[in-house]
């Protein structure tokens, strides 16, 4: 052991302190010479003669030093340094080759790094908090919102204040459990000066209601001041808030004395007590609030009735921090027991059988909170996996491309290799040297690629998330790129390196490096790489075509409504409107907008198709329909205004549309869609029947079916209820829908002005056309199609470059042959065919292999496609035709050079 350590020490010393070792050696040898001189002087020589004689006997000092260095075993590293130097010189001699190879690799590695850094940011990175792995969410659901009404069935995503208190009080294996509102709230923010006067300008920012122990549970410490504490979250406590780092910079220019400043959120003045650390964004990835406010301020922040004391308002999401050593599974079963016990106890002795069944069916499905709640993680998982796979294919193509280049170059360097072999370079030594050159290429390519990725990743990321998620060149990403570069080196460098190692020195030297046999063999090695490139680029091209055709189908499908409608989302709350006064406001808005020239029809609704909203009611009842036992009939219902079918272009099938007369005082009425009528009244007329959502309605009309969410869904039963009869806060969510003559988008300004002309305090949050909204909902599909297309083009480009190189090389090699053929009277077509024929052969194999690969690979796309299958023949044919055109066109360029071969020159060269 001691000996081993000594050896390590010596070797390391030789490695890292080479200069000192050399100096010591020099001193040692000097001492030897000196002793030799001393001996000669003692024997009677003059010192000068003695010195000369001693040095003469000693011999070659440098040789001895070299031998000693070898004895110390440093040559491996020395060789490596020499190989690197040699490799760099070799590459500098051929800058064009080096540039093409490095750029190709940079594209391949850069594409992978960029996608991976997005994957890292979106999917892998844990929350920037203490021990994120101990955080547990009380639901797997990532949606936001609140539920009001009877006990929710099945897995709970939201909790009422009292169930939160009960779970927090129960003996669960958590250090503590925190609660936060299911979704943030937009608040009107006005900063107060130090003397208390409000600033002139106000802004609308996100505020997040959280329990007093939220920051302790999350494991976040204030960067400045303090975070919230339990006492802040009691009735009667002073109004305090914590501000995010970003808005501390934005609103207070990072004022270090921000603690104690006052901001008015809606109508309440909150004192800022602290700033969160910069990386912290809350529990929800990509939606960072500006302020965190204790739960007790819910009525003021949400500007709605208090959910704090209502047992039937389910508005809180829960997150717990496990005690060390406890598991999520144990916590889940304990929480389930505690929740059911509490609900049973609360139902009291009068509990009936159905309530008992319902409670037995309630459960909590816990999920890891380590990476927070992320809607984009769910949405992006599939496209990102596909992109990573596509980027991997591009890297493969890039590698085989560079391998081809290296192999072609190997022919040119055949003589060099042969000379090295002849001079005694071992086979392993040559392989090592060639791999070193490949590694230099790979790492230069990787460096460039990482720079490119660093620059493109934020742009890429913006497709997946509008919020503050940052792609960074962190450890995992750099590790990924380094590994990729190493793998790439082996992929493209190994074949040429082995090829160099196999070089038969004698054969090459005898034919002075021009041996036709040698060249043919090298070319033979390049063939599989060319075919692989063609096949892989075909796979990508087919994938891209499938995505594009699917997107085309999605965008052209009729969804049952007209898309040239202008939507204006308005918020009446800042104007002080309430549920009671909203109806009158909507009437005025309707009149003002309808009076605009060019407007054909106006209505309003709580949400529109493909807007990303969905609102359904559980425990629904339909007259004459008896649900099977245990079924909870859930119906989607949206609040709409008069003229709805006419404005949206959904023809009225039966009965009448909702009208301005259907107000609070009048009988509650509703429209249903055809799918509803088909399901519940297959043989009779739906009109006139009763349904019950949270209140009873009478069906007065049936409209044609329209798709509201996803083109791939089947039509579902749908209910339209009058906005003017809505008694909850939902009546204040309003979007004005305008049908116009001419381009709807051009009416945006006029509609906005008309609405603001009624009351300037009404906020028009957003205007866009329904078409734009539908298109926006295809974001992931468009993204997938866009990237698949980009990758496919990249792949085709790389494959074309590779093919060009090989064909050009082949033409150069066959110059003599072509010369002879031309001399013997071969026509231009025959000469062209001679060259293109090889490409056609490669193409045939490539298409066969690539087509088969695409059939397998496109299974990944199956769930993403709309209106076509994964073996859509048109897509395959289009992609193959595209590849064929590119391949043939590419090989025509060098082939046309073959036509210019002058038979006399060609033959004379021989």
């Amino acid at each position, binding site marked *: 052991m001691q000996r081993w350590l000594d050896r390590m020490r010596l070797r390391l010393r030789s490695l890292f302190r080479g200069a000192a070792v050399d100096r*010591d050696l020099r001193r040692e040898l000097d001492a030897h010479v000196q002793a*030799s001189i001393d001996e000669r002087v003692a024997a009677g020589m003059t010192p000068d003669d003695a010195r000369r004689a001693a040095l003469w006997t000693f011999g070659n000092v440098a040789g001895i030093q070299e031998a000693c260095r070898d004895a110390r075993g440093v040559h491996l590293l020395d060789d490596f340094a020499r190989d690197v130097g040699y490799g760099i010189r070799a590459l500098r001699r051929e800058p064009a080759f080096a540039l093409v190879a490095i750029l190709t690799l940079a594209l391949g590695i850069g594409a992978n790094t960029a996608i991976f850094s997005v994957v890292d940011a979106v999917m892998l990175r844990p929350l920037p908090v203490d021990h994120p792995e101990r955080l547990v969410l009380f639901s797997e659901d990532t949606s936001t919102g609140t539920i009001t009404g009877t006990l929710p069935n099945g897995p709970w995503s939201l909790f009422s204040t009292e169930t939160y208190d009960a779970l927090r009080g129960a003996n669960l294996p958590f250090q503590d459990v925190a609660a936060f509102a299911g979704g943030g709230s937009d608040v009107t923010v006005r900063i107060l000066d130090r003397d208390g006067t409000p600033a002139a300008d106000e802004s609308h920012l996100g505020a997040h209601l959280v329990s007093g122990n939220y920051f302790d549970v999350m494991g976040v410490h204030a960067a400045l001041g303090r975070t919230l504490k339990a006492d802040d979250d009691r009735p009667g406590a002073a109004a305090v808030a914590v501000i995010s780092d970003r808005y501390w910079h934005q609103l207070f220019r990072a004022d270090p004395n921000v603690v104690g400043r006052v901001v008015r959120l809606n109508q309440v003045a909150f004192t800022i007590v602290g700033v969160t650390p910069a990386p912290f964004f809350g529990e929800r990835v990509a939606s960072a609030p500006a302020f965190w406010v204790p739960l007790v301020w819910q009525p003021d922040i949400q500007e709605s009735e208090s959910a704090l004391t209502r047992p039937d308002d389910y508005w809180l999401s829960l997150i717990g921090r496990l005690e060390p050593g406890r598991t999520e599974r144990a916590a889940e079963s304990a929480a389930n027991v505690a929740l059911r016990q509490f609900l049973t106890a609360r139902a009291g002795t009068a509990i009936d059988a159905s309530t008992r069944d319902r409670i037995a069916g309630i459960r909590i499905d816990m999920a890891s909170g380590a990476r927070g709640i992320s809607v984009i993680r769910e949405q992006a998982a599939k496209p990102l996996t596909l992109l990573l796979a596509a980027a991997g294919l591009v890297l493969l193509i890039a590698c085989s491309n560079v391998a081809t280049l290296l192999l072609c170059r190997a022919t040119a360097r055949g003589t060099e290799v042969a000379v090295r072999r002849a001079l005694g370079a071992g086979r392993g030594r040559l392989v090592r040297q060639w791999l070193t050159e490949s590694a230099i290429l790979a790492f230069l390519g990787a460096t460039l690629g990482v720079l490119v990725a660093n620059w493109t990743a934020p742009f890429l990321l913006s497709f997946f998330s509008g919020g503050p998620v940052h792609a960074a060149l962190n450890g995992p990403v750099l590790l990924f790129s380094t590994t990729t570069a190493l793998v790439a080196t082996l992929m493209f460098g190994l074949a040429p390196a082995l090829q160099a190692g196999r070089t038969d020195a004698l054969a090459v030297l005898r034919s002075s490096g021009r041996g036709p046999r040698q060249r043919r063999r090298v070319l033979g090695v390049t063939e599989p790489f060319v075919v692989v490139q063609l096949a892989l680029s075909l796979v990508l091209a087919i994938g891209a075509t499938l995505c594009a055709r699917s997107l085309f189908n999605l965008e052209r499908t009729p969804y049952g409504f007209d898309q040239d409608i202008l939507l204006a989302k308005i918020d009446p709350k800042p104007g002080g409107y309430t549920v009671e006064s909203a109806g009158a406001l909507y009437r005025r808005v309707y009149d003002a907008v309808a009076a605009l020239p060019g407007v054909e029809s106006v209505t309003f609704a709580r949400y529109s198709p493909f807007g990303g909203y969905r609102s359904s009611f559980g425990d629904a009842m339909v007259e004459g329909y008896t649900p099977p036992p245990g079924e909870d009939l859930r119906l989607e219902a949206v609040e709409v205004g008069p003229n709805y079918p006419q404005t949206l272009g959904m023809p009225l099938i039966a009965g009448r549309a909702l009208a301005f007369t259907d107000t609070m005082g009048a009988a509650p009425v509703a429209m249903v869609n055809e799918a509803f009528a088909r399901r519940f009244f297959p043989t009779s007329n739906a009109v006139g029947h009763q349904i019950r959502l949270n209140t009873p309605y009478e069906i007065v009309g049936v409209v044609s079916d329209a798709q509201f969410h996803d083109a791939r869904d089947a039509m579902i039963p749908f209910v339209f209820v009058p906005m003017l009869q809505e008694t909850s806060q939902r009546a204040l969510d309003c979007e004005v829908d305008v049908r116009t003559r001419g381009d709807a988008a051009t009416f945006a300004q006029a509609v906005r002005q008309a609405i603001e002309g009624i009351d300037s305090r009404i906020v028009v949050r957003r205007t866009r056309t329904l078409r734009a909204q539908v298109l926006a909902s295809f974001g992931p599909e468009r993204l997938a199609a866009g990237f698949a297309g980009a990758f496919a083009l990249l792949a085709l480009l790389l494959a074309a470059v590779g093919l060009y190189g090989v064909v050009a090389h082949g033409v150069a090699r066959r110059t003599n042959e072509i010369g002879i053929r031309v001399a013997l009277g071969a026509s231009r077509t025959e000469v062209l065919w001679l060259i293109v024929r090889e490409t056609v052969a490669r193409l045939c194999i490539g298409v066969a292999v690539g087509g088969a690969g695409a059939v397998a690979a496109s299974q990944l796309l199956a769930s993403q496609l709309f209106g076509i299958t994964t073996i859509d023949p048109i897509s395959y044919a289009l992609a193959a035709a595209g590849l064929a055109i590119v391949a043939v066109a590419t090989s025509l360029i060098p082939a046309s050079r073959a036509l210019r071969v002058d038979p006399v020159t060609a033959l004379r060269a021989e």
Partner: protein
Amino acid sequence: MGKPSDLIQGTLDLLILRTLALEPCHGWAIAKRIQQVSGDVLQVTQGSLYPALHRLEQQGWLKARWETSAQGRDQKVYALTAAGRKQMARELESWERLSAAIGLVVREA
């Protein structure tokens, strides 16, 4: 007699180890001693001595330290380690086997 440097491969190591087994020496003295003890038959050149010393040091059989001689000169003095002593025993044994075998062949043939 051939050239003095015609040492059988591996014998030099044994000679160095054997010399150092008596007492620690610097390079010059090792060469000198081998020459003297062999009655000037074996002459170790610097070109093979120093690489061998460095290799043996690298193997952990020798330990080196710098000392100042009586004449005030710095000398790198080598000494046998415990592992070196074992190695010497091994090499000695194989040498004896080899020389006995050669002796047999030479006499019988």
